[in-house]
């Protein structure tokens, strides 16, 4: 059973989510403040963390920042709805996904499963896909290591998957719909900008080519393309 850590100061909410997710087949533990949340997350006992932004003692961003220094444990952030800054900051620091609060627990369960499935594929089946070496980028789905011109890229699991998908189809347009379904494992909904956000983070981490051209181009309202020279 997958062990999930919830870091949220709302005890009642924690109880309810635990109850719901337990029925859905997860093993849930709750912690109510940031400092002990970070400690538990670093203990290595958990497969995944659900992290609220507003926390006593240490806020969610600081917890995530500290966690990312040592661990690639998948993290879903709970942000205040409508607060774009929180969302952007969260994804930039390295959250794998975010969910605006109040959230639909079905959605939460679906996203947990999506992220866990991804990590499971990577851990369990090294033969699932072979290494790719394109345009100075080496990406190894088995070891989950991606390097660009010899420099190791510190990618979140969503960014890693996005890069992999784009490189598999390098030189061809990858539709937003497909990316959303294959990587985020949900249907693309109108007005949802999270894919754009992940791509923009990925672009920043990859950097431009030596000659100044963008590696990933946006094809407006269709999708993205990894350009080949």
């Amino acid at each position, binding site marked *: 059973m997958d062990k999930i850590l919830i870091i949220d100061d709302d005890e009642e909410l924690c109880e309810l989510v635990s109850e719901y997710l337990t029925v859905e087949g997860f093993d849930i533990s709750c912690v109510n403040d940031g400092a002990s949340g970070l400690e538990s997350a670093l203990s290595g006992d958990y497969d995944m963390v659900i992290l609220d932004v507003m926390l006593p003692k240490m806020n969610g961003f600081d917890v995530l920042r500290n966690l990312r220094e040592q661990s690639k444990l998948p993290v879903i952030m709970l942000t205040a709805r409508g607060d774009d800054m929180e969302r952007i900051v969260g994804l930039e620091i390295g959250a794998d996904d975010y969910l605006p609060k109040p959230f639909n*627990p079905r959605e939460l369960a679906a996203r947990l499963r999506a992220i866990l499935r991804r990590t499971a594929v990577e851990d369990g089946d090294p033969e699932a896909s072979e290494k790719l070496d394109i345009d100075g980028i080496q990406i190894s789905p088995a070891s989950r290591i991606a390097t660009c011109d010899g420099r190791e890229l510190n990618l979140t699991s969503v960014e890693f998957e996005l890069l992999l998908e784009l490189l598999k189809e390098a030189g061809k347009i990858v539709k937003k719909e497909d990316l959303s379904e294959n990587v985020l494992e949900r249907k693309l909904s109108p007005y949802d900008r999270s894919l754009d956000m992940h791509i923009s983070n990925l672009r920043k981490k990859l950097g431009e080519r030596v000659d100044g051209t963008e590696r990933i181009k946006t094809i407006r309202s269709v999708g993205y393309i990894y350009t080949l020279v």
Partner: protein
Amino acid sequence: MKLFLKIFLWFLAAVSLMVFVLMFVTRTFQTEPMVNRFERSTRNQLTIYGGTASQIVKAEGEDGLKTFLTRLKDLEPPRQVSLVSNDGKVFFGDPVDAPEVGELTTRTMASGQVETDFNSEERTVGASPVNFPDGRRMVLVFQWERQAPPSLFWGSNTALIRLGGILLVAVVLCYLLAMYLTSPIRKLRGVTNELADGNLETRVSPRLGRRRDEIGDLARDFDVMAGRIEGLIKSQQRLNRDISHELRSPLARLNVALEIAKQKSNPDTMPIFQRIEGESDRLNEMISRLLTLSKLETGADDVDRVRLDFAELVRDVAADADFEAQAKGKHVEVSSADSCPVIGSENLLRSAVENVLRNAVRYTPERTVVDVSLTKENGHAILKISDHGGGVPEDELPNLFRPFYRVGEARERKTGGTGLGLAIAERAVKAHKGTITARNYNGGLQVEIGINTAKKGDA
């Protein structure tokens, strides 16, 4: 006209007028006695000259008289001296031509007394009788060049310097006075602008020093007002944060509890749970929109402005809206989209366009099209979004952008929506110093958004 210039010019005019009136009055009152004195002394002089001439002609004869008259002629100021006999002939000296001189001579001849004429423009004339020992009577006529009283300001250098000095002092004084009156007002205005721009901590008093007059009072009152506004806005911002947290926490719990209840429910209760879920979503949507709105109203301080192509943004949002509209059998079509570079917050602009567009999609009937057109006209990006939803009564148009405003019977609650979309759009557009208007057009409502396009070189 600027207040400074007004005060300056008015005071300068007043001071100048006062100076000139004063001069005029003084001059009038001072010249009168001077003229009288001059006339009296002229008469006395003439009487003496006449008497002396009579005595000399008696003692020394006509030659002595001529010597005396020649001596008189050489005196200052220059004059003409003539001795006229009773038949009008000039016995000695300069010719007598002017008619008024002739008349004066006749008068003296008749009266045997000194006569004067000060009225002539060109000269002052005086006549005095001279009695000869043989009984003849002649008239001694003096003609002086008319001596104008010295001008106060014109004519000489000293007078000009005097005039310049007075004007200079007046200008300097008026300038200082106008500065004294307007500079605190200018400072007050600067602070008002700062406050309006969202700098709530700004105050006037430190810049004005300790003034005890009405302007000082105004400044203090302004500071009190600014303090209250700051308090109100801060508490509203605090309230917004609290609402966001406190209202959403129970809502989050409600959502989870509802889902648990659904896990345990039977098919009979399912519809009602779904209903609860729908209402909860709606409540949530309203809270977030209310928050967006109040954030926009309390000054968009966290707006990060970038250069972006408005056309691209509009096409993006239109594509999303079309996707959504197709599910309801409606369409969104972009009929034109000129490239319009603008400086602004992508999020705010997106939410403005999205809110207007979703509103249009909501009210346009099935199988109709919402038309989107973006054109560039004299430095403005003009976005027009038109639906076919029948429009709204003319007198309700301006109210459309008010929060929670609903138009009479035509657009009822059942059509969904929170009543905040257009209000948010308006605030977002205003935050970009743009305009947003609504009008009835072609059997529907047309909302027009105008935003200044960026010039080359803008950041």
